[in-house]
């Protein structure tokens, strides 16, 4: 793909966002709710906020809604009407203001759902989605993208990446064809960029571990006593998994009776006791020790092994959201220190 760059003024960016809303596109962008920032559908571009480090929730619900209807059936006088929601048209969506780590996460997320038997819902939704991300000029102590294969100016997974530079302007990286056509359709708003070095505008996030090393140390850690102490304060909620842009576990729920009903796909989390409980009552992950181990192992050991990518992009959301302050970055650093490197 081309590596064309443009610049865009803040006013023209607003004009672009307004034009997208006016054109009937479903625009999702960061908006404030109390002290937190969430991606929400935008009707008025003026409600979009720009001064946040990271949103409370990830943008994954655009690809993977928290409750997604799969099949519905309704009995009426003519008989049973069955709706296959997979056949429904997905509206064109624009995600604005995702961070580079989010876009990187979504690309891993899509890859996960495309490996082997491709998931129709996720792939169709990604096709209907255009991602306009915003580079990070600020970070906070929970961020560790540079340890997880991403960075404050990473273009991976975005269609366009904007980087705030001086004088209320943005440098625009055109990453994909989709991004290119969005620029082409609104050409008057963009200016050809002189050579600008993006790096000097970006936040500095120090790398604190190398994922390869962690994966190696985890390979022999299954029965290590570290997991018990590490997970003592974890209260077993789903907050970390539900705010995480790469967590993809779900459960299939059936609702209704013999005349009317729905089948839905809903988020699930390995932190819940019920996640692995068998019908016999036996639970192979009986305590939070095994559940926390699963969370770390899945992201830093199993996924790198089976799917060849890391299940974490270091967005820090889980650490910010955790009611018990289970700081993931700190936990991974501890693993690098406590576990032996074998092999």
């Amino acid at each position, binding site marked *: 793909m081309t590596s064309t760059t443009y610049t865009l003024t803040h006013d023209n960016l607003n004009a672009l966002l307004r034009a997208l809303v006016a054109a009937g596109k479903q625009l999702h962008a960061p908006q404030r709710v109390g002290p*937190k920032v969430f991606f929400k559908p935008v009707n008025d571009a003026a409600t979009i906020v720009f001064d946040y480090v990271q949103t409370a929730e990830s943008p994954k619900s655009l690809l993977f809604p928290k409750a997604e209807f799969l099949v519905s059936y309704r009995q009426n006088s003519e008989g049973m009407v069955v709706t296959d929601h997979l056949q429904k048209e997905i509206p064109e969506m624009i995600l604005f203001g995702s961070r580079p780590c989010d876009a990187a996460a979504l690309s891993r997320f899509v890859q996960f759902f495309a490996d082997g038997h491709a998931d129709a819902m996720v792939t169709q939704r990604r096709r209907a989605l255009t991602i306009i991300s915003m580079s990070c000029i600020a970070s906070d102590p929970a961020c560790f993208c540079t340890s997880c294969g991403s960075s404050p100016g990473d273009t991976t997974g975005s269609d366009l990446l904007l980087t705030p530079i001086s004088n209320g302007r943005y440098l625009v990286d055109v990453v994909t064809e989709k991004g290119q056509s969005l620029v082409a359709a609104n050409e008057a708003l963009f200016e050809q960029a002189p050579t600008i070095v993006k790096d000097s505008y970006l936040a500095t996030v120090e790398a604190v571990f190398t994922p390869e090393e962690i994966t190696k140390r985890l390979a022999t850690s299954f029965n290590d006593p570290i997991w018990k102490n590490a997970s003592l304060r974890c209260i077993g909620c789903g907050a970390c998994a539900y705010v995480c842009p790469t967590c993809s576990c779900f459960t299939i729920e059936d609702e209704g009776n013999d005349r009317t009903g729905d089948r839905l796909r809903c988020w699930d989390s390995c932190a819940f006791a019920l996640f692995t409980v068998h019908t016999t009552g036996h639970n192979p992950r009986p305590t939070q020790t095994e559940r926390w181990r699963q969370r770390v192992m899945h992201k830093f050991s199993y996924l790198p092994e089976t799917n060849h990518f890391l299940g974490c992009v270091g967005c820090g959301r889980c650490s910010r959201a955790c009611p018990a302050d289970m700081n993931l970055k700190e936990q991974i650093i501890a693993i690098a220190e406590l576990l032996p490197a074998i092999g």
Partner: protein
Amino acid sequence: MQSLQHKAAELLGSNRASVVIGYAEGSDGRVRPHFARTNDDAKALVWDQRCKQNLAVYLTKHEIKEMGPAAIIASPAVVRTIVQMASEQQFVRSFPITLVVDNDQVTELNDGPSLEAFATSHPVLFPSHVTKEVEDLAAMSVADRFAFWQEEFSRCFKCYACRSACPLCYCTKCITESNQPQWVTVAPHALGNFEWHLNRAMHLAGRCIQCGSCTLACPAGIPIALLTIEASNIVQREFGYQPGIKADAPAALSSFRVEDKEAFIR
């Protein structure tokens, strides 16, 4: 702080407690739950304004229980929790050693009467904005209140952090997890979220000791405590029952008196 650390070390040293549940410095200016089992662990204990999460939630956690006798550093809300849990028969053999800190003075509360006396002399204190939110909600029309919760619940994804952070949601099998019969719709859509939160509010009506930990825990920023706080307020108004004050009080909503003025009981 020093006297707290000494006290913890003394309890551990004399084997009266195998673990002291408290707080330690956490990430980026936060505090986090801390389980002191050695002298060194005890030195990390802190106690200040930031210590808001209700630690009583760990008294029923398997991994903590198997450590042996526990001591817990308790805010007034934790004391109320322990009294309430006692009234619900959650401490079969003995109470946890409950440590209250006042002006760097540590006092042990080890039996029903001392816990009750402390709970009674330390009434619930909400930050002023919570009191106002509770009042504002109560003053709303039913339609406005419904719209308020509809908007708030739209962000709920059923991570159950509110439940996990609540020391009185100690059920090993929650009502949401029952599927034969299924009481609560599992999906986090509008209906499922209403069913879940109304069920939880009903389960905590007259049991919620009003610590606010559920709101603190919610990653979606939903002020979920407002529901259970109001539910407990209503129970107090209607039945004269305040949770967390008497260790042997019968539960407000699951006990009855033959002399009840309502006819349905007879």
